[in-house]
């Protein structure tokens, strides 16, 4: 934001032929660009590193999946155990994402729209699940609901199971995806301020009306963004689910756990075939994420921001986004 004021003196001191753009690539090359050799060496280094650690691992999944032919691939992903694992994965995500969606909306509403004691503590607590190892996320539910746990005896008396059953898988998934949606919504709603909602209130709208007709349209893309990330993690979670699942084939196996079982049985082609489904999910996630980012304008911060928020926006460094974005497993900018 301050750049416009800082930018003016330079062109005025040295009246260059092209007056308009502040940093045209050609004019800038002389002083604030590296020699071409350094530039291409850096690009090559970055691409080599990314190739070794990102691109080849992605490629190997697809190649290994089809190594034994398409028939084996098809057999692996239509195997009844694989299908039931897929169903459970979808069920777990279909329950945990809406739960965290409702939580995210509630948390963002009270944190972004109101000023209350203990807000920062609450923000830190919401982030807590990100810093907990997935294995520990599973362990704590075993301690609460397992046979040796707090409610274990009671659950057994009532013939109910949480650990080594679907509810445990859902709970563990909810835990590891807990902050995703809240974290997307809070900084955005904080940056948007209260004026529109207050205006609606003055004009006589009720709480639900305000939320549905004013707030929701303003946050829908961030909401979608959070849902995409939350869903990807929910479907891909391995460690936490592994602890509480019990690995009962056809019953408490999710897709990532099914991959592990196949791999440990040396059915590599089948393991990679099922893994390729998850890799596909990851790629779809990245594409959707990219598209939503374009809508959100994350990539062009200061320039694309709404025209008016400048006067009272407390954070100088662009829309409040960085404030609570970075610890997460998602995109900081």
């Amino acid at each position, binding site marked *: 934001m301050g750049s416009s004021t800082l930018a003016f003196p330079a062109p005025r001191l040295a009246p260059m032929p092209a007056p308009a753009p502040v940093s045209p690539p050609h004019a800038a090359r002389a002083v604030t660009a590296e020699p071409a050799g350094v530039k291409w060496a850096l690009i090559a280094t970055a691409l080599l590193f990314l190739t070794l650690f*990102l691109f080849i691992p992605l490629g190997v999944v697809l190649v290994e999946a089809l190594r034994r032919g398409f028939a084996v691939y098809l057999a692996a992903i239509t195997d009844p155990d694989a299908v039931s694992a897929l169903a459970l994965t979808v069920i777990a995500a279909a329950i945990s994402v809406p739960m965290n969606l409702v939580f995210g909306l*509630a948390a963002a509403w009270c944190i972004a729209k109101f000023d209350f004691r203990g807000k920062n503590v609450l923000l830190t607590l919401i982030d807590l699940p990100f*810093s*907990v*190892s997935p294995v520990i996320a599973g362990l704590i539910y075993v301690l609460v609901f397992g046979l040796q746990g707090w409610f274990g005896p009671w659950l057994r008396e009532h013939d109910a199971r949480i650990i080594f059953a679907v509810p445990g898988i859902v709970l563990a998934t909810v835990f590891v995806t807990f902050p995703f949606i809240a974290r997307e919504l809070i900084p955005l709603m904080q940056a948007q301020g209260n004026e529109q909602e207050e205006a609606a209130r003055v004009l006589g709208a009720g709480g639900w009306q305000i939320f549905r007709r004013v707030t929701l349209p303003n946050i829908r893309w961030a909401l979608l963004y959070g849902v995409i990330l939350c869903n*990807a993690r929910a479907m891909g979670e391995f460690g936490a689910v592994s602890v509480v699942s019990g690995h009962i084939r056809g019953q408490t196996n999710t897709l990532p756990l099914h991959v592990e079982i196949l791999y440990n049985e040396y059915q590599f082609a089948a393991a990679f075939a099922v893994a390729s489904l998850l890799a596909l999910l990851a790629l779809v996630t990245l594409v959707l*994420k990219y598209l939503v980012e374009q809508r959100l304008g994350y990539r062009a911060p200061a320039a694309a921001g709404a025209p008016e928020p400048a006067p009272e926006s407390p954070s100088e460094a662009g829309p409040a986004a960085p404030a609570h974005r970075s*610890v997460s497993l998602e995109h900081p900018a």
Partner: protein
Amino acid sequence: MAPWLVHAATALRRNPGYPVFLTRTLLRRHSVLPGFDLALGFTLLYLGLIVLIPLSAAFLKTFTMTWPAFREAVSAPRVLASYRLTFGASLAAALLNGVFGLVVAWVLVRYAFPFKRVVDALVDLPFALPTAVAGIALTALYAQNGWIGQWLPFKVSFTPLGVFVALTFIGLPFVVRTLQPVLQDLHREVEEAAATLGADRWQTFRRVIFPALVPALLTGFALAFARALGEYGSVIFIAGNMPMVSEITPLLIITKLEQYDYQGATAIAVVMLATAFLLLLAINGLQAWARARQGR
């Protein structure tokens, strides 16, 4: 009864069905917007049920142990070896990511090259790819007959080096994504000024650009490190999981659980949790510092 309980009880009696307690005690400034009680009440309830109460179970469980038993559980030689591996490999991976993450972020922000957008989007792959998939893919690549492993003179898969490779994969986006916005916001004018004053490009980077990046770089490093400490899925396939050699701490927790040693597992988990919370505090501090720097 405690005063706040009395207060809450009277509030509820006067206005049944509407929990004004939270508004009365917590709200700093009156707002015309509705829904504070409902939203905060639900937030606290959900947070308590899903996160706080289960997490407290881990700490409460260790209170049932005697001190010597706890110390024995968290400092047995096999456990110590797992700490050394987990911390060492996480640190090394975060350092490697610190170096190459800076290069990647720099290249993505400053240069134009073919398929840049695709490359940029793929940096998030470790966030989106399920860890188990990453685990088997890396294992296949770095195995002795794998695409990469066959060209290396030393073993990677099924050694501590494999743990390092997996943790590098996991941590990469943290450094890149923390640095990118800061690099984008750097004022070119400062670099022009440095050049005007006679600095060459390397001097400008070392004395002008790099100091501005340090808070974000440290934050990204700490995030990658914290994530690596708890990582499980991508590591267990490639590590080989030999006790004392290539067994990470999260795996040890699972091993103890499978032997029904709940106390032992929980004791180690509490050590990991305490470390994670300390790191979280450090990261919050670093981010505050980075924000202060950026907003300068």
